């Protein structure tokens, strides 16, 4: 098992290297000159372009830039990148500690610190959504399966479908503008750090979390329902019945164990995806999470930030995949990690 994890981590690392290099090639060697996006109107001033280029190190060949980037990830680096510039203006030196993912001249900040600032917001949203969609999605799916073909089943599946049919931004806007602001049914969805006030944190997350969850719930209801129904028709459940077990044991010990296992993969990967930010929800509720950061960075061609986000997300997804596989082997004795 350890050997397996080490092997997987290693191949994940290789994947990250390949991906980051590819991203580098794409962004820094593409049709547009990235320096053009570092200065806006000021770019017209003679010398600014050249200065910024040297400051960010964009004047080096791509492999050299990549090497510096990798070095930055592990030991950190200083900006301006050009030693001559640093010497001439020591007061402008910005230290970018490891893991340094680059420097955004637009925000005048290191990418790492920007990510660190935004990540808790996205993570909080993801957690809130996750709790709700698992509770309602999996719970609803189980109930629907138990009442298969009868009214609770139809009601649950039908309601979920209705929510699923509305676009996320519509549901988000509705909850925000009407439920929270106009009717004042819930507290204002404002982000408060958990460390500051856990209760406010949870209250603030309710509506945006629900918005996100509603998108997932329908799918989880359908999947859970079909997994439970499928598990209930397995031969080994007939055996459980034939042993004289009571309904509760049959349902919780025998059916659920096999029905819910495959959901783990999906739930973990969906959760990992959400950790990287939920663009629409964050925009609607004006949450300054990673999704919003990504959109802003993309629209303003803030390339270091974009690269940083891409790499962070890939790392999360790769790690989530490894965790899921290990978890699976723990739950299903037939799965051997080798």
């Amino acid at each position, binding site marked *: 098992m350890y050997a397996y994890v080490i092997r997987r981590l290693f191949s994940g690392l290789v994947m990250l290297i390949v991906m980051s290099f590819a991203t580098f090639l794409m962004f820094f060697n593409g049709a547009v000159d990235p320096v053009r996006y570092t200065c806006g109107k000021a770019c017209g001033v003679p010398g600014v372009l050249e200065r910024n280029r040297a400051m960010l190190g964009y004047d080096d060949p791509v492999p050299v830039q990549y090497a510096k980037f990798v070095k930055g990830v592990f030991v950190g680096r200083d900006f301006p990148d050009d030693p001559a510039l640093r010497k001439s203006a020591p007061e402008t030196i910005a230290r970018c500690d490891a893991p340094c993912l680059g420097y955004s001249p637009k925000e005048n900040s290191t990418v790492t610190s920007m990510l660190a600032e935004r990540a808790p917001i996205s993570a909080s949203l993801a957690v809130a959504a996750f709790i709700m969609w698992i509770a309602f999605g999996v719970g609803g799916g189980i109930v629907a399966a138990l009442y298969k073909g009868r009214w609770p089943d139809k009601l649950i599946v039908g309601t979920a479908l209705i929510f699923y049919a509305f676009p996320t931004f519509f549901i988000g806007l509705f909850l925000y503008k009407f439920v929270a602001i106009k009717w004042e049914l819930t507290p204002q969805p404002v982000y408060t750090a958990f460390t500051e006030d856990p209760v406010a944190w949870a209250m603030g997350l309710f509506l945006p979390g629900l918005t996100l969850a509603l998108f997932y719930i329908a799918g989880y209801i359908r999947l859970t329902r079909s997994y439970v129904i499928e598990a209930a028709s397995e031969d080994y459940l007939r055996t459980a019945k034939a*042993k*004289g077990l009571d309904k509760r044991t049959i349902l919780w010990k025998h059916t659920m164990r*096999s029905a819910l296992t495959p959901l783990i993969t999906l739930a973990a990967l969906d959760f990992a995806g959400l950790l990287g930010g939920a663009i629409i929800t964050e925009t609607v509720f004006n949450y300054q999470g990673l999704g919003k950061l990504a959109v802003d960075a993309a629209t303003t061609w803030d390339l270091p930030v974009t690269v940083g986000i891409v790499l962070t997300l890939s790392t999360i997804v790769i790690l989530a995949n490894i965790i899921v596989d290990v978890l699976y082997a723990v739950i299903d004795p037939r799965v051997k990690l080798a």
Partner: protein
Amino acid sequence: MIGRAHHAPSSTVALDAPRDESALLRVEGLKVHFPTEDGLVKAVDGLSYTVPAGRTLGIVGESGSGKSVSSQAIMGLHRGSRAQVSGNIFFDSTDLLQIGDEQLRRMRGRDIAMVFQDPLSALHPYYTVGNQIMEAYRVHHNVSKSAARTRTIEMLDRVGIPNPDKRIDQYPHEFSGGMRQRAMIAMALINDPRLIIADEPTTALDVTVQAQILELLVGLQEEFGSSIIIITHDLGVVAEMAHEILVMYGGKAVERGSADEVFYTPGHPYTWGLLSSMPRMDRARLERLRPIAGNPPSLINPPSGCAFHPRCPFMDEAKYHCVSQVPVFNPELPHPVRCAIPEGERHVIFEQKVKPSL
């Protein structure tokens, strides 16, 4: 190990004994119908038989003839599904179709146990073999975990699993097919049930393993004195195991008799077909096999009259009401046969036309 296999004792006893009085299980007019989109599937349609205490009944018939569905009805495994079950199933004097769910649940596994065809899919993949057997014991016995564990190891040992104290903590996929079936048998026997229903217990196994399992079942029956219903489509298996044999066709019993009667003086044209269509190792090799023509009957729109008539080579000869009337099957008779041809004539046909080519 070269040894004498255990064998069913001579089957004449059952003939003399009054069938119904001593019966542990009495199935009367059992019907199991499934409403489906295509129509009502009459999987079992008026089935009656008895199983005396300590005896083995073999049920044979082609796939889809209702063997499994009828035996699952005994255990009440159709409860809670859309299946429509009617008739009577008396176990001792309790009608299993009438009692409440809870009362039936307490009998399942304790009085009546079941061994299924494919032991890999019949065992839960996520729990150890020991866990599943212990569970079967503890649900009917108020004992501690360690007592249940001791008893489970004992049973695993009894069914011939080596190193039972280690094997008990392994998962089904770590067992071979034969060992899984042994574990299933241990699970079925752990509560010392009075009736064991084995639904194709060896169909998924190799002949060498099948021989071991059948030997085990016969030996355990002698030891524990339980009754067994063994369901199979392999006539060799019933010949080895069963005192009495029930032949099913299209959801109905078409013949029932002692093993000797069914093998040496079979009465139903379908039984004749079954016996003569299979290649046999113990007879001179035939140039050509003699299959039963046609296909199994539809259970939604079964053929009118005798369900076997579209495939029956003796229908014309009979000049009876094969097509218009369902022939009767009188379970009170010692060797009932569901065929419109009177017994005497059938006997002549068998002796003259069928037996010489068997």
